[in-house]
């Protein structure tokens, strides 16, 4: 019987993702994460020894995959960007304190 995901693992994953799960959401997430294990069982049926992972399809389509030259170019206008900030002092994004006493 393959290992199943525990509620503790679900809570840990939620913490990693900076998401809060309500108590009634947890059982559904346990079952959803278990479906990943089912997917993996399916994929593990396939022999992939010697197969390189495919991260970007460009390599199949004859793409160069070259990186561009590392050259500084103008970016977005600061004022325009800060105009969208929930809270700003005009130079920085203001956020609540980082550390709790």
């Amino acid at each position, binding site marked *: 019987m393959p290992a199943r*995901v525990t509620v503790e*693992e*679900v809570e*840990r*994953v*939620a913490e*990693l*993702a*900076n*998401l*809060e*799960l309500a108590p009634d959401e947890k059982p*559904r*997430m346990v079952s*959803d*994460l278990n479906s*990943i294990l089912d*997917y*993996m069982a*399916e*994929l*593990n049926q*396939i022999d*992939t020894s010697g*197969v*390189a*992972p*495919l*991260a*970007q*399809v*460009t390599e*199949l*389509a*004859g*793409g*160069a995959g070259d*990186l*561009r030259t590392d050259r500084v170019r103008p970016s*977005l*206008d600061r004022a*325009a*960007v800060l*105009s*969208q*900030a*929930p*809270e700003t002092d005009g130079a920085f*994004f203001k*956020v*609540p*304190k*980082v*550390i*709790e006493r």
Partner: protein
Amino acid sequence: MPTAETFAEKPKTLAELRSDLESGRTKAADRAASYYERIAALNPRLNVYLSLAKQRALEQALRIDGLAAKGDPLPPLAGLPVGIKDVLVMRGAPATAGSKILEGYHPPYDCTAVTRLEQAGAVLLGKINCDEFAMGSSNENSAYGPVRNPVDPARVPGGSSGGSAAAVAANMAVATLGSDTGGSIRQPASFCGVVGVLPTWGRVSRYGLIAFASSLDRIGPFAANVRDAATLLGVIAGHDAMDATSSEQPVPDYAAESDQPAEGLRIGVPAEYFAEGLDPEVRAQVEKGIDALRAAGCSIKPVSLPHTRYAVPVYYLIATAEASANLARFDGVRYGYRSKSSDTLSAMYRNSREEGFGAEVKRRILLGTYALSAGYYDAYYGKAQQVRRILAEEFLRAFAEVDAIVTPTSPIPAFKLGEKTGDPLSMYLADIYTVTASLAGICGLSVPCGTTASGLPVGMQILAGHFQEGNAFRVARAVEAARL
């Protein structure tokens, strides 16, 4: 079943619209105004548009009218009313991505594809409703309410680009832009009876597309006919310095390529896509489409894509993993929704995301986070990427034998709002039909292929190899010409 008042007429062709402007029969400003009137009449029921860009649209229309008045040559899309899916940014207009977490956000830049349409003369009418962060296949996951299918407003338009497909079907825009990660252009195109194009990954710059899964995301056009969809692709395609993954491959004249007869093209039909779960009426229409291709002088042969069924687990692992990374930026710090009552930074992150994201988005982030977490990365994400290569190479081998592969776009026609179809086999097939091409990076489109007996649109999916969009367009024109 179709209600006449919401599906009154199809848009004119690009050529007819352009001729109207050049001849002085119509002014771009008047055309834009009449589209806004139509939107005002239909939007309360269909919920296609989330916001309108009237000032920008009018300025552009007047600019076009100025050129026409002087007798200056008009750009290729002069005065064309276009709608933009709300995951694509337009400077100064809201971009919600169908989510509350971006409510109030006005991007300070334009999506490259949007810029290119506007430079070609298009009039950008406004931002169109979609599933939240492009996650969904019915446009029922929008935080701003579902979109209704203009053919039958009790039914979904498909998703995630449901609004973009519906806009063209209801002539609330002549063309629209959408995005496709696992089928989000093709499937709504088939549900609404319009053409939707999936360009090769890297064909169209993703700069300005709010990312869902970066190795899968594509921007593509919707139009009422194949030739116009090809024209639109030609306008938005091409290398962009702002997207390092955009291809340097030259952009052919897709419309001209689509004019070439389909005679002599070799068409592959994969048995894996004609299995149990495929609605018999959908099958019948697609088979009529294949008959039409035979009649047009194409050779039809079976192809084998034996790893097709593994596409679903591969897709779910890769798409959710990439989504979890891409959506980490929505944290209340720099833009969008920030939860009010947080006394620490980490509480602010958690609360903003918890309050701002919908349930489906949260679910996918959690799945992806799990797949990428320490101890699982290689076993899950890594393995999925290996199987992805196997799937992609299977397509490449098939395209050595055939010029295009045809399948139904969706195993079922549009279902009713609130009723995700009960049959798990159909839902499973629905994923398989579209995610395979997404994973392989190949191109394709959905072309209308008649309707069911009750009038629901059926779409045929036409797939072609990397950067072989011309083949897909040629085949699509032959299906379209059969007027099924």
